[in-house]
């Protein structure tokens, strides 16, 4: 078993043990989306217009709520110290954490998105395009979250930093993602989706190394 697979399996186990945290992110997403029809009234035409932006912003905000947890426990209990001394390199560790977090937080959001699309009267022809864009977009967002989480561990209790760190660089993800979710009729792969993919590819290449640099000298509990 490779160190990457080992860390991923460990994170999935930890995610299952703490599945309440997972449900908080999912619940947050469901609540934000359902608030809009309540505030706007039940006019189907209006709901259809806001469907894509609302789902995207809700997915971003709900994901943001989970990012502070990515490294918090591992740093506090000293697992990062043990990883740093092991043959597993920190970028590999950070990448495994990113994939684990995406599977535990973003995948449930994707799973309920069709239901939310129905609630907001999104055309069924658009759903496939939006799901595809959301899958890429949440992956890119998770990688930004891994950077933000690692940096705020170094800053000690900098959880409030997260929104300021992660949301500005996430704007291209939102812009391309929303555009890719509203393609011209009959097209699934649009230039916007490709740009979103490009953002994801860049983050995949750099995020693990930035996070690793931030974690290289992170402090465990009462490390003094």
């Amino acid at each position, binding site marked *: *078993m490779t*160190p990457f697979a*080992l*860390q991923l399996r*460990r994170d999935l*186990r*930890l995610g299952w*043990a*703490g599945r309440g945290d997972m449900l908080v992110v999912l619940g947050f997403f469901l609540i934000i989306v359902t608030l809009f029809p309540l505030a706007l009234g039940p006019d189907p035409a209006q709901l259809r217009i806001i469907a894509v932006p609302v789902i995207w912003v809700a997915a971003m905000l709900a994901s943001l709520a989970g990012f502070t947890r990515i490294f918090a*426990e*591992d740093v*506090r*209990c*000293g*697992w990062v*110290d*043990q*990883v*740093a*001394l*092991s*043959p*597993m390199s920190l970028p590999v560790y950070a990448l495994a954490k990113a994939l684990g977090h995406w599977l535990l937080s973003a995948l449930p959001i994707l799973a309920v998105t069709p239901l939310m699309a129905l609630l907001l009267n999104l055309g069924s022809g658009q759903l496939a395009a939006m799901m595809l864009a959301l899958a890429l977009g949440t992956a890119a967002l998770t990688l930004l979250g891994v950077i933000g989480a690692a940096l705020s561990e170094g800053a000690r209790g900098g959880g409030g930093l997260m929104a300021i760190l992660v949301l500005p660089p996430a704007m291209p993800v939102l812009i391309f993602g929303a555009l890719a979710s509203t393609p011209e009729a009959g097209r699934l792969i649009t230039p916007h989706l490709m740009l979103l993919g490009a953002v994801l590819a860049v983050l995949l290449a750099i995020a693990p190394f930035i996070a690793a640099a931030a974690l290289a*000298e992170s402090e*465990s*509990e*009462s*490390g*003094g």
Partner: protein
Amino acid sequence: MSATLPSNTRELATAPAGLRLCDVVLARGGRRLQPELSLTMSAGEVVLLRGPNGSGKSTLLRTIAGRLPSTASSITCDVPVLYIGHADGLSPALSGRRNLGDWARLNGLADDDDAIDAALDRMQARGFGELPVRNLSHGQRRRVALARLTLGQAHALWLLDEPNAGLDAASSIALDDLISGHLQGGGMVLAATHLPLGVTHKPRTLTLEVPS
């Protein structure tokens, strides 16, 4: 072979296998804690770090483990390092057995059930090895963390931060036995502790002063 050689091979040629600290500067939050420290350790040696709170014992151990920056200094260590700090390195939601198994596998060590059982037995921790670590007392967690020592390589350098704090009498003796056995087998131990260690080898002492 060449991949395992430290970059500073010139220095290695004159030094015996082990740990070598040369003019290490300890600093926390930009404040210097100690004058330059130098220390050489070789196989079978035990060094006790003494000094009042805040004198930099944990900082020194974390610096050697590579978890804090060392400025203007050279640290060479040509054996594997096994570090047990204040934080145990055990995820609270997983069992002690699972934590040890993951750690052993991560480091390419024996991780089968027998090896983990034997390790837990050495610290008399088998009885609560299946429980989530969050349900254990401080001393029990410490014992699970210290069970790691049995799984590591024989010639490793152990960096132990207050290893026997919070242990009951029987576990303290078990730890002393572990350390004695490790020294016998050619390992090295650098431990920061306020409590005496009852090891068979005569320890050297490195005393750190509080900065004036």
